[in-house]
């Protein structure tokens, strides 16, 4: 009895101290690891020390990364991505995604048309002269992409989403290994908006033309119908040449 009562007077302080310690440890560990998870899977900050994406991303720019887009396969053509270098696994490169799997691209350096294989992507830098990219080492596996670059944060005058060039957005989907369009891509895409602007005018005038067509065809049967009547009357007229000659002249 004595022992039990002694314990009862002693334990509450111990228990509370232990529970406070336990709680603080649990919350600290959980907080740190949830921070890690957010940085790893949702969004993170990155600094780009690279000239291959000039002028979109310049040396020393601070950018917002979103690995979320890569894990859930939401990447589109024209997105800027951070990617592990295929030649050096410890290095990270920053490039623009030019083509996804199943598409064909023209390699500017070799001049060949290349098919992007399944599970692979084609990356190129905006600064074509300085960047070493898929034009050199071919298409690279999707698994090497770390995250998408969504926002340019640091130089505040250039703050904003990384715009995708217009020529990339209107790229025709060149699916299939053999496509004839890839050779003359920039020229086609440049003239595209002008053509679409003039199209509605032409289509507006079309119903008018089609409306007048039934009227013309309607008069044709009448003409054809009157022909046999004239033919039928001809033999009668030839029977009396004097009367026949007199009728047309009058």
């Amino acid at each position: 009895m004595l022992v039990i009562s002694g314990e009862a007077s002693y334990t509450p302080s111990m228990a509370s101290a232990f529970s406070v310690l336990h709680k603080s440890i649990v919350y600290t560990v959980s907080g740190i690891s949830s921070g890690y998870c957010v940085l790893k899977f949702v969004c993170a900050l990155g600094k780009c020390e690279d000239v291959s994406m000039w002028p979109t991303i310049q040396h020393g720019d601070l950018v917002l990364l979103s690995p979320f887009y890569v894990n859930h396969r939401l990447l589109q053509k024209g997105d800027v991505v951070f990617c592990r270098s295929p030649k050096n696994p410890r290095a990270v490169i920053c490039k623009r995604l030019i083509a996804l799997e199943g598409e064909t691209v023209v390699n500017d350096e070799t001049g060949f048309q290349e098919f992007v294989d399944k599970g692979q992507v084609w990356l190129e830098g905006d600064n074509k002269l300085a960047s070493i990219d898929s034009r050199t080492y071919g298409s690279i596996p999707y698994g090497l992409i770390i995250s998408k670059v969504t926002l340019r944060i640091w130089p505040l005058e250039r703050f904003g989403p990384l715009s995708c060039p217009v020529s990339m957005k209107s790229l025709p989907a060149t699916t299939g290994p053999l496509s004839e369009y890839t050779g003359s891509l920039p020229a086609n895409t440049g003239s595209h908006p002008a053509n679409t602007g003039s199209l509605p005018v032409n289509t507006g005038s079309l119903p008018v033309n089609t409306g007048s067509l039934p009227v013309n065809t309607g008069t044709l049967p009448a003409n054809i119908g009157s022909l046999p009547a004239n033919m039928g009357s001809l033999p009668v007229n030839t029977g009396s040449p004097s009367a026949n000659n007199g009728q047309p002249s009058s």
Partner: protein
Amino acid sequence: MRWMRQLVRGTLLFIPPYMAFNDIFFSIRTVDGVSMQPTLNPEGKNTDFVLLDRWAAANFQFERGDVVSLISPKDPSQWLIKRVIALEGDQVKSDSCFEEDVNVPRGHCWVEGDNRECSLDSNNFGPVSYGLITAKASYILWPPSRWGKLDKLAIAQGRVTTRENVDRGKVFFGWDS
């Protein structure tokens, strides 16, 4: 109601550390398929659980003969489990229909399944980049009869010409433009 609230809170507190631990240190996965057959899944059923050492792979601590897991170069949502045959700079005899010598380029390695008859490996898709390797498989956990370390397997003589003087594993901080 109180125990339920505590259960929810406990789960919410537990999930982030679990995910972070899985991502940084160790994770446990089942093995699908028969491509590693004498070593894993010997009965042809998907029974095996392996312990994946992610820390070792993040620091590129794997040698020839180690079992590693990697993201498939053909399908990024799929993880493969294969054995490393050759590292960067080595020359390996390809097992495909041509039987030719392949020089494994810089930053790449050559992986193959133990079951050579039905395995989708480097003989199909060529050498894979180090960046695709997600973990080193270090232990077999589940069938208790085969519980133990996954040990290195010596590679057949004459298949791989190793080059040790490559500056392999050199720490590089910076950017490849």
